[in-house]
């Protein structure tokens, strides 16, 4: 039989636009198998690959372009999709079926327009440069940042959704922000009069100026600020920069010049299949006009992308038949929600309203004439009502007798809709069109982990607004099926780490054997439960980990109190608290490294790491280090690593507090504390933040009045900025909060969970954490402090402890019956130091050993 297959010539598909919708289209093409039929070219005008425009304002809050990027960097390449970034498509030559780009011509068989929209800037005389900025792309944001460098005040023209996002961006750049809106209220499309008023009150309370019913007539040079905006009513406002965010317009220029049908209000006209009047050309997202409407939200764009991808793949597809424009947002930190017929435009519609002027909260529920169904809703100040109301509206669920309960404050038994009441067709995630039925299917198929569910369905990975509802439905489905969600640590303990921690505390358990006998299965345990229990025992009782009962529990690094490297040798990191070291100690460290020929490198935590020690050398090395005044650095443990510091007010002309002194105090207090994962601190002496404290689990930054405390930051694979937890603390309060925070983390975190992930998984988030730690809402404060004090009182350098005990040192032998070292460990010299040999260099060994 002939096994050769003649390759089938694939058609060429071009996607113009690599924004959120264009990218989603490519993802869907890959997923639905369209790449077997098409060679896909994607043209993006911007330099960056597709990124998350919904969370654009976070670009000024510390997120960079890469963290906003969508999908894995190599997704396109892996599937053979050719991505042309920074290439503008100038023209579609429909006669020859080619696109003309700034880089040449490219033939196509099918074409998808996903060119999006551009910001509308009203023609105002004098608007140019920094008085004519827009807010749409990363480049726009860079331009705003540049303009803000020497500015004090910034104005946003447009009080809609995007305008308020832009105002938030200006605020996070440290500017005094103002919003100028033509209509008599903010967010005129989504909110009614009272809702707009409540939003205005909240936003003004945040220090943002709101100017309504104002049309800008001209922009001239200012007196106090760079520009002056003259309004139609004779008033004026001065500012250093102006951002226009007065609406979007479909980017339909190339469709227009190619002779595609264009709607009266702009946008390439498409039918229910998202097809233009040229059957080989589709248009999706904000550049498309369906039934005379443009959809400026991401969810309808994704629906269009999904539909088109399925059609191209020859799969069953759902036609696009309009979209629900309900939306839930946090604007400038204020909850705003709008559902369906928010303005009660439906004939006979009746409204319930709740107005709280004291806290500027507003809720409106619009119901049908017969009072049975929800038509729409407006929420300002508290979006916790949103999910329930949306499900009522979308699924036509019959209202209770007194619907007002749905928007009244939920002090006494909230009348929220249980996940049970939702029909299977109910949409949970509108970005990725995941229904309750789809979630049920996954649960049926055996998914019992929320992360796994998200990975498989993509639910809650778009805007993220449905996270809480998804969890509710998921948990409900699991328990409905009687799936006891298996949170067992391993086959030996049917408990979570948190539960085991409580058992150890409450029953005063001090050994693994005791815990296993009373609460576990089997006689041995495994490499999952042993280190986890070892860590819990250490967190609670802080007994030396080298004690005979404890030592078999430890991972190899804890067992030998050093970090195993790839060739089985160890690295050694003595504690250099706060990064402060005397010349004599530095020399002593160098002398030890030289004597044992250890590869030496400065770590990121202001310490010195000595690599290449064999097991039997560790006691000698540590004997010399302890002699020179060092103690163990716990670089091998899930425990406090370092407290990084800058020199602070002692030397620095900008420093306002003694950051080194505080770093030493903190490192000395918490050294040896074992926890679910490693913990890092940073202390900066002023707001310039040279110690990078905001990337640490605990960050302390000096102020004129004391210390600001930041918590739950992280570097590493998934960087996270620490969050501001408390301000202007005195030394004692700072330490009390850190005591409580760390012990609460140790008590409630999962195994190997860093403080960042733990904090994100806490129900109630940062506010809850503040209540527990600062307000002592659980009444745990004194207990947590006492538990910390016990650990601190029992601190002992583990290496000093081990060196005193010949029994413990017995283990530090490469061979128990021979003095030799491991003959398979080989080094070569590189840049004046030795390093492990690569497998490919093994033939070099005889020569280099002579050299050594």
């Amino acid at each position, binding site marked *: 039989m002939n096994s050769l297959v003649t390759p089938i010539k694939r058609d060429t598909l071009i996607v113009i636009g690599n924004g959120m919708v264009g990218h989603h289209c490519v993802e869907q093409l890959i997923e639905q198998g369209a790449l077997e039929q098409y060679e896909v070219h994607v043209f993006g005008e911007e330099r960056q690959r597709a990124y998350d425009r919904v969370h654009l304002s976070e670009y000024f809050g510390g997120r960079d372009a890469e963290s906003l990027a969508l999908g894995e960097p190599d997704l396109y390449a892996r599937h053979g999709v050719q991505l042309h970034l920074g290439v503008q498509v100038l023209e579609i030559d429909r006669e020859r079926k080619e696109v003309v780009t700034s880089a040449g011509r490219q033939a196509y068989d099918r074409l998808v327009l996903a060119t999006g929209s551009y910001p509308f800037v009203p023609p105002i005389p004098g608007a140019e440069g920094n008085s004519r900025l827009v807010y749409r792309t990363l480049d726009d944001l860079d331009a705003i940042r540049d303009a803000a460098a020497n500015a004090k005040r910034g104005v946003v023209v447009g009080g809609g959704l995007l305008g308020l996002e832009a105002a938030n961006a200006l605020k996070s750049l440290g500017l005094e922000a103002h919003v100028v809106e033509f209509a008599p209220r903010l967010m005129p499309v989504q909110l009614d009069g009272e809702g707009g008023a409540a939003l205005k009150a909240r936003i003004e309370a945040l220090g943002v100026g709101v100017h309504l019913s104002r049309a800008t007539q001209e922009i001239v040079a200012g007196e106090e600020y760079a520009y002056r905006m003259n309004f139609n009513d004779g008033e004026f406002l001065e500012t250093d920069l102006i951002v226009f965010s007065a609406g979007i317009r479909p980017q339909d220029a190339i469709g227009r010049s190619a002779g595609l049908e264009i709607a009266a209000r702009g946008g390439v006209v498409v039918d229910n299949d998202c097809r233009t009047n040229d059957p080989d050309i589709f248009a999706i997202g904000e550049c498309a006009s369906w039934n005379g409407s443009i959809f400026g939200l991401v969810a309808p764009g994704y629906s269009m992308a999904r539909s088109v991808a399925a059609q191209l793949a020859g799969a069953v597809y759902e036609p696009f038949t309009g979209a629900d424009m309900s939306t839930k947002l946090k604007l400038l930190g204020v909850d705003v929600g709008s559902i369906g017929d928010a303005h009660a435009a439906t004939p006979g519609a009746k409204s319930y309203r709740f107005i709280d002027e004291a806290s500027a909260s507003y809720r409106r529920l619009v119901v049908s004439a017969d009072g049975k169904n929800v038509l729409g809703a407006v929420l300002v100040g508290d979006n916790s009502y949103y999910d329930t109301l949306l499900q009522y509206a979308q699924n036509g669920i019959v209202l209770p007798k007194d619907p007002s309960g749905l928007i009244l404050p939920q002090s006494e038994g909230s009348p929220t809709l249980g996940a049970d009441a939702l029909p299977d067709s109910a949409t949970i995630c509108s970005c990725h069109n995941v229904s309750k039925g789809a979630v049920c299917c996954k649960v049926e198929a055996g998914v019992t982990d929320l992360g796994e569910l998200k990975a498989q369905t993509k639910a809650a990975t778009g805007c993220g607004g449905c996270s809480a509802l998804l969890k509710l439905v998921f948990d409900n489905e699991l328990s409905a099926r009687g799936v006891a969600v298996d949170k067992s640590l391993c086959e030996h303990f049917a408990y979570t780490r948190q539960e085991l921690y409580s058992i150890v505390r409450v029953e005063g358990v001090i050994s693994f054997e005791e815990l296993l006998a009373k609460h576990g299965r*089997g006689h041995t345990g*495994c490499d999952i439960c*042993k280190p986890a229990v070892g860590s819990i025992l250490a967190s609670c009782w802080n007994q030396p980990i080298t004690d005979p009962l404890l030592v*078999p529990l430890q991972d190899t690094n804890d067992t030998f109190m050093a970090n195993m490297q790839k*060739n089985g040798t160890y690295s050694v990191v003595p504690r250099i608290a706060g990064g402060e070291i005397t010349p004599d100690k530095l020399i002593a460290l160098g002398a030890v490294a030289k004597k044992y020929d250890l590869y030496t490198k400065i770590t990121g935590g202001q310490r010195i790491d000595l690599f290449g020690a064999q097991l039997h050398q560790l006691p000698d090395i540590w004997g010399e280090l302890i002699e020179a005044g060092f103690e163990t650095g716990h670089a091998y443990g899930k425990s406090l690593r370092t407290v990084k510091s800058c020199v602070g007010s002692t030397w620095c002309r900008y420093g306002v507090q003694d950051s080194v002194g505080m770093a030493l105090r903190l490192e000395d207090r918490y050294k040896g504390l074992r926890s679910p994962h490693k913990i890092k601190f940073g202390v900066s002496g002023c707001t310039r933040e040279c110690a990078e404290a905001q990337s640490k689990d605990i960050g302390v930054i000096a102020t004129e009045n004391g210390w600001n405390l930041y918590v739950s930051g992280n570097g590493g694979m998934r960087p996270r900025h620490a969050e501001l937890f408390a301000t202007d603390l005195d030394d004692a309060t700072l330490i009390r909060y850190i005591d409580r925070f760390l012990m609460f983390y140790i008590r409630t975190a999962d195994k190997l969970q860093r403080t960042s992930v733990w904090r994100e998984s806490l129900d109630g988030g940062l506010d809850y954490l503040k209540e527990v730690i600062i307000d002592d809402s659980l009444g745990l404060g004194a207990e947590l402090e006492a538990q910390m004090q016990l650990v601190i009182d029992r601190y002992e350098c583990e290496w000093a402890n081990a060196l005193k005990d010949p029994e413990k040192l017995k283990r530090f032998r490469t061979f128990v019956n021979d003095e030799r070292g*491991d003959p398979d460990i080989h080094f070569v010299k590189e840049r004046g130091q030795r390093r492990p040999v690569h497998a490919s260099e093994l033939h070099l060994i005889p020569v280099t050993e002579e050299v050594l």
Partner: protein
Amino acid sequence: MSQSNVVRAEFRQAARNPAAWRALCSRSDLVANSGVVAWHEGAQVALFHLPHTLEGEKLYAIDNRDPKSGANVIGRGIVGQLKGDLVIASPLYKQHFRLEDGSCLEYPEQSLRVWPVRLNGDAVEIGLID
């Protein structure tokens, strides 16, 4: 019969009938519920001592070389029990080897040599096949 089954059968055979016993170290060199390593004519033998199993005191001898990393580190792993089998977890990449026959739970193509081992008075002895 698969490759690993053949290997396991051979070791079981050897365990029953070693040609000779060779003393490597003394009982006091062992560490309870954990491992140490002995040198034996160019081979590195990891010795694990479990004083209290259901079947009483147990001793295991297994090759110290981790086939995945090529480093001699097996003796420094954690002893555990998975689905009834006593195993050792390699400290570098955490794959598990059965102490009884050296077979690997995760990667059937990896397997470690094992030796028959016994306590003869105070001496720890391994059995040699030839």
